[in-house]
């Protein structure tokens, strides 16, 4: 079938310059700037200029990021009675502003932290609008909002979804305010992007949301999403490639994806944070691709940099520019930098704007560019539904150790709970390379390295998809601890850079030289499934090999507060797995397919839908020989009831491996289960010890990996 066109049917925006499309359009047309000294929390030194949202965020029970997301999402969904089929939200801070306060006060009640998770923002919106399809959370630092748009775009193009609510949200918090400051990336005078005297960015908050539809052109489409491109610098955890190679690759990919030539771009909305390095590198990349007269501007001198929200906010701004015929000013620019050979727009300009390119780049070298235009009839390429991915090799880590040790322990019928020691984890990595790294980046790097070595090292991945339930907890705790202990004065820059969810995947990209898409997803117990689903959609265009990872650590303080399943098990557990995959169907190897993901809470029809999606009872019996069931301890009762319902719905007599009892309670345990399923499917047998001592063999059949609990997921693994 032909690829579907994707329209912006609704949009919502809340930022320091205004709340809603009309207020934002007026502020942009008037060249209004909104950077002011921070008032959200007290600081030991005079507060720096930030972009703080002024409209009422006064719900005491809901973190600030969630409130911002709701405001923008309500605007985007106004006039749409139907539930979105998919929700994709980019965020980095989520409940952090609340969590900081609780941790500093010594609160030990896990219930108080229930909205800490990055995934809880999208989850809140899913409940609010009754979404019963995939709910994904992108956490690629400052490109999250734009990456979210790319994922939704691919899902809509194939026809797998017809309506997607997509965007980004982040609130100001101590972590980002002090974090960017200790990296010396803040301009004390407020951000002045592209200015000769610029000294850095201004941290901000906000949310942008888009209701995208693939149902034909709606009556009042704001604009059309023409395409988007992703890339990774694979260069440094926090600094951009000096020549802007990654930025160039993302923009070139976005143009190719949208079928639009560089000459057809009427306005480039720059990432333009105002840091000396970003603006110089981005300008070099833009100059390589576009005519020097193409109007460009960064709005971050007006709004500040709202991190994960920025890409979505600026996509909404792009739609406003097209509708209003407006090119916004590069607020804050007084003395153009002679090193930057671009044409920044210094005053808001009224002119016809048909097509806009918007850039968003993040830590970890995670880059995205989005092309938004007036709806235009054109020929579209063919689009096939997502297909299974072929496993070239895999690796896992559990408390038992690396892959071979884990497999040996399970075949002997012994559990693998526990936490691998740091030295053993990094046994193959030079001390110089990992000296500054804590558990999570070391885990991700070890998994990537082992998967590659087990493949015969002939398959370096082009793209990386990483799922983590809780991200780098040691770095997050280290940063906040050093901040609190020194009266908000001396936090660790290393920990700040490492604390973003996508830092481990950024390190993997550097290690492997993977310059394609680099996407980190998060969502408590289904983060790995989200990563696999995203890989299936985005990997088709990647051409090369894909590395899909899931990993989580156990932190002695934070795991018990954030992850209720980890808190319920007396044995700490950590680990993960990596699969090196090919999107080429002709490649040999076990096939993995992300068949299903949907919220399960409060739904009675979810199990029936899952059975239907798997092709019904008959197909399940014919194709699968074992069920690997993931039942997180926090959802044990509900999960077991779901498992029973699933068994009775398909008259299932399959043996069941209750895998968390073997590998332990950590969010990405399903990554390990999927790796094991690949091993079992290739062998056509499961170690007898895992199935109550009964030898189970199923030659020619595969394994089902089903996640029960809050989210229902299914991965098909077939020989």
């Amino acid at each position, binding site marked *: 079938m032909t690829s579907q066109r994707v329209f912006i049917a609704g949009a919502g925006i809340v930022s320091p310059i205004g709340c809603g499309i009309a207020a934002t359009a007026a502020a942009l047309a008037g060249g209004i700037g909104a950077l002011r000294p921070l008032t959200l929390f007290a600081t030991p030194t005079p507060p720096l200029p930030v972009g703080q949202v002024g409209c009422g965020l006064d719900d005491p029970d809901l973190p600030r990021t969630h409130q911002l997301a709701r405001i923008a999402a309500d605007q985007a969904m106004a006039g749409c009675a139907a539930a979105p089929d998919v929700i994709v939200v980019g965020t980095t801070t989520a409940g952090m502003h609340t969590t900081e306060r609780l941790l500093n006060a010594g609160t030990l009640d896990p219930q108080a932290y229930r909205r800490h998770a990055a995934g809880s923002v999208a989850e809140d919106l899913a409940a609010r609008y009754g979404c019963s399809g995939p709910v994904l959370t992108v956490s690629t630092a400052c490109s999250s909002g734009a990456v979210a748009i790319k994922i939704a775009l691919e899902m809509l193009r194939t026809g797998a979804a017809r309506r997607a609510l997509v965007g980004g949200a982040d609130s100001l918090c101590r972590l980002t305010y002090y974090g960017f400051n*200790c*990296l*010396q990336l803040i301009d004390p005078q407020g951000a002045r992007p592209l200015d000769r005297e610029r000294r850095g960015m201004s941290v901000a908050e906000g949310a942008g949301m888009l209701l995208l539809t693939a149902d034909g052109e709606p009556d009042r489409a704001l604009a059309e999403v023409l395409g988007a491109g992703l890339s990774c610098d694979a260069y*440094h*955890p*926090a*600094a951009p490639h000096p020549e802007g190679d990654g930025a160039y690759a993302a923009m070139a990919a976005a143009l190719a994806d949208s079928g639009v030539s560089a000459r057809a771009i009427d306005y480039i909305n720059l990432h333009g944070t105002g840091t000396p390095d970003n603006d110089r590198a981005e300008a070099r990349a833009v100059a390589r691709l576009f005519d020097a007269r193409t109007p460009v501007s960064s709005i971050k001198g007006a709004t500040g940099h709202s991190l994960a929200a920025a890409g979505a906010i600026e996509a909404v701004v792009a739609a406003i520019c097209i509708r209003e015929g407006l090119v916004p000013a590069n607020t804050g620019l007084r003395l153009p930098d002679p090193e930057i050979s671009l044409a920044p727009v210094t005053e808001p300009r009224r002119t016809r704007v048909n097509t806009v390119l918007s850039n968003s780049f993040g830590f970890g070298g995670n880059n995205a560019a989005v092309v938004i235009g007036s709806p235009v009839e054109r020929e579209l390429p063919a689009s096939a539904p997502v297909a299974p991915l072929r496993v070239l090799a895999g690796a896992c880590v559990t408390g038992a150790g690396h892959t071979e040790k884990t497999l040996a322990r399970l075949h002997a019928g012994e559990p693998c709970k526990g936490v691998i020691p740091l030295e053993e984890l990094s046994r193959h990595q030079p*001390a*110089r390379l990992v*000296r*500054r790294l804590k558990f999570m980046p070391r885990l991700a790097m070890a998994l990537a390295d082992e998967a590659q070595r087990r493949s015969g090292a002939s398959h370096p991945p082009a793209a990386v998809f990483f799922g983590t339930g809780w991200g780098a907890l040691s770095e997050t705790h280290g940063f906040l601890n050093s901040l609190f202990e*020194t009266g908000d*004065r*001396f*936090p*660790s*820059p*290393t920990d700040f*850079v490492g604390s973003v969810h996508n830092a481990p995947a950024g390190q993997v990209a550097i290690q492997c030289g993977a310059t394609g898409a680099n996407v980190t997803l998060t969502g408590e117990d289904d983060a790995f499934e989200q990563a696999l689903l995203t890989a299936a959609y985005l990997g088709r265009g990647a051409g090369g090999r894909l590395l899909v990872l899931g990993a989580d650590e156990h932190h002695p303080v934070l795991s018990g507060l954030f992850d209720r399943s980890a808190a319920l098990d007396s044995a700490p557990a950590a680990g993960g797995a990596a699969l090196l995959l090919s999107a080429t169907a002709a490649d040999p190897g076990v096939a993995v397919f992300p068949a299903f993901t949907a919220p399960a809470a409060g739904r009675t029809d979810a199990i029936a839908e899952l059975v239907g999606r798997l092709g019904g009872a008959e197909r399940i019996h014919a194709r699968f020989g074992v069920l690997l069931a993931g039942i997180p301890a926090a959802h044990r009762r509900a999960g077991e009831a779901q498992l029973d319902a699933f068994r009775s719905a398909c008259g299932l007599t399959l043996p069941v491996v209750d895998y968390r009892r073997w590998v332990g309670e950590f969010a990405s345990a399903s990554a390990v289960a999927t790796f094991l399923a690949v091993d079992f499917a290739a062998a056509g047998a499961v170690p007898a010890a895992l199935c109550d001592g009964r030898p189970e063999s199923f030659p020619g059949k595969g394994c089902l990996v089903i996640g029960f609990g809050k989210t229902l997921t299914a991965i098909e693994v077939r020989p």
Partner: protein
Amino acid sequence: MEQLIEELKKKIIGILDLANLPSTQLEVDGPLVGGSLGLDSIDVLEMVIMVEKDYGLRVDNRELGEKVFASLRALAAYIFENSPKLKR
């Protein structure tokens, strides 16, 4: 001064996790950044925090940073001459 150099050496090895490296030779006059240990901009920022916290000196721009962190000796000399916290 020599005592300060030794003190700084210990601190830097600690905060930058250099102890486990096969060659923990932190040279006094060699380049601190780049060099055989491969220290980079994030390591410099860790040292900036240490210098401010322990010696009350702010290094908040790139030009000054390049001068101060040129070598271990340069760092010690800068602290020795400017620190309000140092008992001389």
